[in-house]
């Protein structure tokens, strides 16, 4: 149970920089998700922390130790893989005991630890089975037991749940979170799934083109994205561009949009992000920000209705509404939508 730090870590394959100058900290006992599009360098960063890849420059520390030059086997890490990676020729108990054996823990002491770990992942009594006799979800639990039984300094997970179906994945998310909380392990979790990242993590780091564009608590990152990319990648966003004018933003059509966030100086161009679910359809005039738009499509998704809209200027907008009254509006209708100034976030490019 230790904090993990990476300091100016960079990695280049050939001439393409895969990670450029990453500096960040994963505090002791925290659960951090690395989120980003394919090829953004999530796996590379995780594998640098694990020791499978040597960074071109930079330092990795686990606890108080600089581990940059320590090979994987000496780093005391717990790792989970997308493909489970259980040893197929060993029983479940042997799989879980493998790391203990490497640490000189054998016999009754090892058996006790193995049983405890299997109980923790809710697979007591499965020790004598072989990996082939388990379902995917069960195999991934064994992989988790195998990773945590060695009391690693850090738990590293590279999309461990993406091979599971939706239900099983949600079940495993709960388990993973429970076990992470119980064990207090510093955890770094790579995922494609933003919902997963938001629900599981203490911190979310958004990567783009080998850089961490934003890192913070899920609510912070979601409610106050720093860049257009972060706003777009994590959830959906509407973007309005305009010019700062007297503490508000004037759009091209003259509409004035207010925000509670600090704006740059008057006259500068600015992009505002508004989440589609923060907007609502109103019938009368409102004190909040508002716009008029025409419905191009209504998507009925059960609990939520998604409205695809277009303003008179041809600016596309999205609005998510709770399905209270069913689908009462239809394509072609013109509506007024409004949202609060505190939900209007200026973002960088």
């Amino acid at each position: 149970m230790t904090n993990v730090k990476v300091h100016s870590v960079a990695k280049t394959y050939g001439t393409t920089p895969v990670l450029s100058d990453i500096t960040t900290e994963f505090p002791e006992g925290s659960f951090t998700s690395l989120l980003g599009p394919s090829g953004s360098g999530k796996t590379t960063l995780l594998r640098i922390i694990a020791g499978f890849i040597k960074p071109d420059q930079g330092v990795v520390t686990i606890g108080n130790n600089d581990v940059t030059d320590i090979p994987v086997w000496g780093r005391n890490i717990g790792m989970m893989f997308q493909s489970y990676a259980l040893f197929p020729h060993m029983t479940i108990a042997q799989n879980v005991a493998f790391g203990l054996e490497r640490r000189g823990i054998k016999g009754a002491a090892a058996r006790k630890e193995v049983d405890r770990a299997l109980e923790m992942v809710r697979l007591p009594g499965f020790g004598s089975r072989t990996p082939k006799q388990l379902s995917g979800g069960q195999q991934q639990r064994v992989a988790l037991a195998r990773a945590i039984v060695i009391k690693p300094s850090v738990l590293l997970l590279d999309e461990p749940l993406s091979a599971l179906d939706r239900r099983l994945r949600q079940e495993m998310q709960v388990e993973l979170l429970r076990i992470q909380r119980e064990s207090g392990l510093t955890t770094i979790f790579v995922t494609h799934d933003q919902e997963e990242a938001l629900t599981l993590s203490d911190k979310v780091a958004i990567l783009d083109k080998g850089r961490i564009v934003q890192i913070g608590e899920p609510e912070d990152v979601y409610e106050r994205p720093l860049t257009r990319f972060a706003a777009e990648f994590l959830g959906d966003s509407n973007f309005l561009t305009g010019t700062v004018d007297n503490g508000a933003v004037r759009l091209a059509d003259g509409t004035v949009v207010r925000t509670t966030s600090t704006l740059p100086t008057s006259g500068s161009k600015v992009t505002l992000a508004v989440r589609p679910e923060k907007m609502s359809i109103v019938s009368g005039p409102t004190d909040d920000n508002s716009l008029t738009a025409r419905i191009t499509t209504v998507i009925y998704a059960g609990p939520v209705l998604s409205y695809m809209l277009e303003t008179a200027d041809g600016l596309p907008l999205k609005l998510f509404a709770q399905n209270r009254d069913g689908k009462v509006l239809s394509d072609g209708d013109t509506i007024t939508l409004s949202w609060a100034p505190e939900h209007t976030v200026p973002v960088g490019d």
Partner: protein
Amino acid sequence: MQNDRLTSASERGPLGPRSRRVLPSWVSTMVLLLPTYGWLTLAVFLPLLTMFVFSFMSATPMGKAPIVFTLKQYRAFIDQPYLVGIGINSLLIGFWTTLFCAVLGFLAAVALVQSTLGKTREILLILILLPFWTNGLVRVFSWTMVLRENGFLDNLLHMIAPDAGSIGFLYTRYAIVVGLVHGYLPYMILTCYIALVAIDDAIIEAASSLGARWWTILFKILVPLAAPGLISGSVLIFIPVIGSFMEPRILGGRVGVTMGTVIEDQFTQAFNWPLGASLSFTLLAVVLAIFATFSGVLRRGTAV
């Protein structure tokens, strides 16, 4: 199931209703299996059967001597006890050759799987297959040049230590094993390679993340997981090696008398095909007995 699907597929075929003639399922099964069994009969069963029949004859049927069916050929090991020694010698050569092939071949296959840099893997594969493509006779004779007194090996030694004696060991059992290992190593490399490439990288990474060093990964992960490759490679090598006659004859000289050379002599020199055949079948029986024992031991070993 499979056949039902086949016939129903033909019903829906492009010929439409005209192809509605449904074949009984056993017919299509037979038709599908025919090439396999036909080939087996032609390539394995017929020659073996002929030789098996020969092994019970009193003399080669092409000579003038009258043919009588007899079991006397199978008493060769009792009537000529020196054959037992030769047999053991052959089995030992087979054992050492297979062992060296297993160790070297496995390590070579591991290196091959690990070499992911550019074209290195392709180049290594070609280098490994080179002895395969060389004429066997050339391959073996080239070893005589290396191993004989004042041969290449001695020259090399004398370059470093000019006063050293000869370490050439041509015409010894070691020379035979060297020649055989060289010739049969590619089989082991290829079978092990096939077994090793099938292992998910993540399994090896998982092991090292749990604290395993390279030797633990080698002996606890790679060897057990590639065991099928090691076993099939061993079988593939052991059988032809104990029957080999070219390497023992050329590299073994006086000590190069093995079951392979004795059997070859029966066919080419002594013109005693029945004895050659019976010796072959005795050898085959011994090999099968060895494999049966071995596989029993293996099964018990993995069951624990």
